[in-house]
């Protein structure tokens, strides 16, 4: 087995006086989707933000693609090949869809072939190409947010709750796009509350509780074991 694309060992992160991450050990294998699961408030979003560098880890180390990125600033991590889709989507609402996408291609002009691929996955973006992003609907904003991460070839995508608050039809568009991305060989670390999506997309999974990873393994194993889900997350996938 090849070495993992991302490896966190013993990562602690504080936000103000609060000790949020308390020794996260996480391995994201190369290729495929890794689900990051757990109840609300256990530190999933903080983990993603620590990986991209919005929060600085107080201790522990982060390795990405074989290199130590613990002390790199956010832009350097992004340029090393990490795409980030935050929970609030981070859309530049005063800019047009086009301008959002131009910015997303940090290392040069947008690649037309890639843009076609993105338009195929998210048709509304073509329709509203020249509209202000702030006027898009919630689902369209989420599409734009993911499309921005896809604007350039990246090795790892960090995606925080892409289906939150969306209608089922749009969720299936999202899931389709993520599957597409996976097919292209990218690795994805996905935080997701919707278990049917998690079950359908996930290859491996890690479950967090109280700022730590408390279980890691194959998604299928977790999905098939109701007692394990109950123990780890206090609820079963079916109940959701």
């Amino acid at each position, binding site marked *: 087995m090849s070495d993992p694309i991302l490896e966190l060992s013993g990562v602690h992160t504080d936000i103000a006086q609060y000790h949020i991450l308390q020794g996260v050990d996480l391995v994201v294998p190369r290729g495929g989707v890794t689900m990051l699961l757990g109840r609300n408030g256990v530190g999933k979003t903080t983990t993603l933000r620590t990986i991209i560098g919005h929060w600085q880890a107080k201790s522990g180390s982060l390795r990405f693609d074989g290199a130590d990125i613990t002390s790199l600033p956010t*832009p350097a991590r*992004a340029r090393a090949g990490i795409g980030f889709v935050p929970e609030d989507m*981070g859309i*530049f*609402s*005063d*800019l047009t869809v086009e301008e959002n996408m131009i910015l997303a291609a940090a290392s040069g002009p947008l690649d037309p072939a890639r843009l076609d691929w993105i338009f195929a996955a998210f048709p509304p973006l073509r329709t509203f190409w020249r509209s202000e992003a702030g006027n898009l*609907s919630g*689902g369209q904003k989420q599409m734009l947010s993911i499309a921005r991460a896809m604007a350039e070839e990246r090795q790892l995508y960090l995606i925080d709750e892409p289906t939150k608050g969306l*209608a089922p039809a749009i969720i299936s568009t999202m899931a389709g796009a993520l599957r597409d991305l996976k097919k292209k060989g990218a690795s994805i670390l996905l935080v997701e509350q919707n278990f049917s999506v998690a079950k359908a997309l996930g290859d491996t999974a890690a479950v967090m509780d109280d700022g730590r990873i408390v279980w890691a393994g194959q998604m299928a194993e977790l999905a098939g074991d109701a007692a394990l889900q109950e123990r780890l997350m206090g609820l079963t996938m079916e109940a959701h």
Partner: protein
Amino acid sequence: MTSAAPDHAPKYAQLSLPDRIGKAMPLLLVPLLVVFGFLSIGSTSSWLTLTVSGLAMGMMIFIMASGLTLVFGLMDVINFGHGAFISVGAYVGISALLALESWTGVPSLLLNVAAVLAAVIAAMCVTGALGWGFERVIVRPVYGAHLKQILVTVGGLIVIEQMIHVLWGPDEIYLTRPETLKGAVTFAGAAIEKYRLLAVVFGLALFVAMRLVLKRTKIGLIVRAGVQNGEMVEALGYHLRLVFIGVFIAGSALAGLGGVMWGLYQEVITAGMGEEMMILVFIVVIIGGLGSVEGAFIGALLVGLLQNYIAFLEPKLALISNIALMTAILMWRPQGMMPVVKAK
């Protein structure tokens, strides 16, 4: 998932008519004010003269304010020392002009323009460099702490102002404009000073250029996006800090340019002029909406026009007219006319 899903059809959230009028309202304020001026002044020629000087003043204030508002928008840094760049720019530029007296004293447009250009370049280089140093020494250690930022930048303002006294002496410096910029042209019975006309044209050109940079270049996109959500700009791979330093330097240089223009306008410069202008600059930045270049532009024109109209109509009220304008606008829009939509 329980609720039935609506069809997934792209839907553009169209703005309602009142919303669109609301958005365009600030743009209408300037013509409204001009019409108000016309109606209350009565005499066309006085009105024309006042309007041109109001616009000229507005343009100069805008040039000084643009950097400040962007610096705040990008990094949440409030620089009370911005006025120091105005003063320094004026002193450097005017010193250059005085040194080039052989170019400014002759009625040759070419030589006069060359002298002004040289003065402007000198002023902008010095204030740009000063801005770079100011950012490193004064501002950088106090990121994220507004209280300390205000205190320290006020300290920086005092030190720079006092250094002007040390280097140029304690007295104000009087000057005369280059020959071809003296005098006035008569238009529709109104005498309009050439310099004011030039200031309007120049300010307008600068505003258009600034807008082009912000709208059409990638660096402009980064700045606009950074004002809304700096974290996301970094997550896309851009070093916001470098962009910020660039904007800080550019903003300081523009303040210096504004200082030269203001000095030529007033025909006298003092070390305290930057501090005095800062009052107007702050009012403009507040009513425009912190972080918004367009808002600052409109705000500056409003302040310039109103001040000139009121000074003509009711001189005693001119001083508080700006405060009244600020109060009225904040009652209407507590965040200013065109607040930047901050993500989160």
